[in-house]
């Protein structure tokens, strides 16, 4: 799941470089409120999970998102 998620995440955020597990996603130059909505929408569609905002607020790295999905699938 990790590799696929990283690829999809890279495409979703239109990143020039592939994203890595320990990237702090809020530090990406193109991270904004629309990017946040894209991630919530993507995770819901792909994994059927709506990440609650308070949970998302605690996440720092891309791995944190993956771990949350794994724990809630």
């Amino acid at each position, binding site marked *: 799941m990790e590799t696929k998620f990283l690829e999809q995440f890279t495409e979703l955020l239109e990143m020039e470089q592939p994203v890595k597990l320990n990237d702090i996603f809020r530090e990406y130059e193109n991270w904004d*409120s629309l990017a946040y*909505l894209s991630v*919530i*929408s993507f995770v*819901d*569609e792909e994994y059927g999970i709506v990440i*609650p*905002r308070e949970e998302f607020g605690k996440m720092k790295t891309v791995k944190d998102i993956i771990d949350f999905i794994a724990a809630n699938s």
Partner: protein
Amino acid sequence: MASFTYTNIGIAGLSAAVPKYVYRNLTDNNNFTAEDASAIVEKTGILERRVADEATCASDLCFAASEQLLNEMNIDRTEIDALIFISQTPDFRMPATGIILQHRLNLPKSCLAFDINLGCSGFVVGLNLAYSLLQQDSVRKVLLLNGETRTKVYSFKDRQTGFLFGDAGTACLVDKNQKYGQSWFVLDSDGAKSDYISIKTGGYRYPSNPDSFIERERENGRIYSDEQGYMDGAGVFEFVITEVPRSIKRTLQFAGVEKEQVDYFVFHQANKFMNEHLNRKLKLEADKVPFSLQKFGNTSSVSVPITIVSELSEKLSGVNKVLISGFGVGLSLGTAILTIDNPWLGKISEI
């Protein structure tokens, strides 16, 4: 569970009016760069919307829509036993705008008239109320009016709300007829999220004051005053993608109707990103889900009826099962499944 079912009550006709002035999101908002505007329009799908001038109120749009409907359908006005006006941009704080409209529309004094303060869920909730009034033998016809001038509510300098909203009014005539068959409504409220979409000042909790009119820069560079609408877009998105699919499933289940039996799904026109997410999540065929937001934007409670008038006038011949769903400010959420049998649909008028 607030669920309701009705027999042989339905929509006889529907008309809409919009302001003449077309506001083009890609070029007309000088508070943002062309690049920003284009990125926002790409996500929201709202290319243009109608903006009312200072002298035009929501009630004027509903008045125009009502006159068209009553005249062209040749309705005897003495048979309108109730008028419901739904808006969060009324003429006055008091009296109720609906009562003013009873007089303007030359409806009899024996007509019940009142306002409902609801937004995006307002057409569904109001329609449920109209149907319930019509269960009385003595109530013959109900006029349900939805009107908004939301462009007067939100700051054009707020990137979350400054590109979304449009002004419009609709008039819906509800009556009794054997042809309508059964219809079903499921309505929900979530007051824990009342601050997700709100205007802070101007009521009695926080009265208007000199400070409340001052525009301030907030988080993420959003600029608005306390007299203007605030929206927590991310919170609303989370609510909608979680609760709306549930509401639709519950309504289908309550009605004993399969998703495939529904001819059209008419959703509140929030924004393209959110509505398309709903379509994919619910696995709906694109040609069953009309969109009008590219032309009129998000018109709050008007968006469901104006989408029917604007997008389904060519398609609604014969008998159709139509699912409608409205969701937003409150937060409030309503879904209904209606049998719509050859309704009269007016041509959208411009004032």
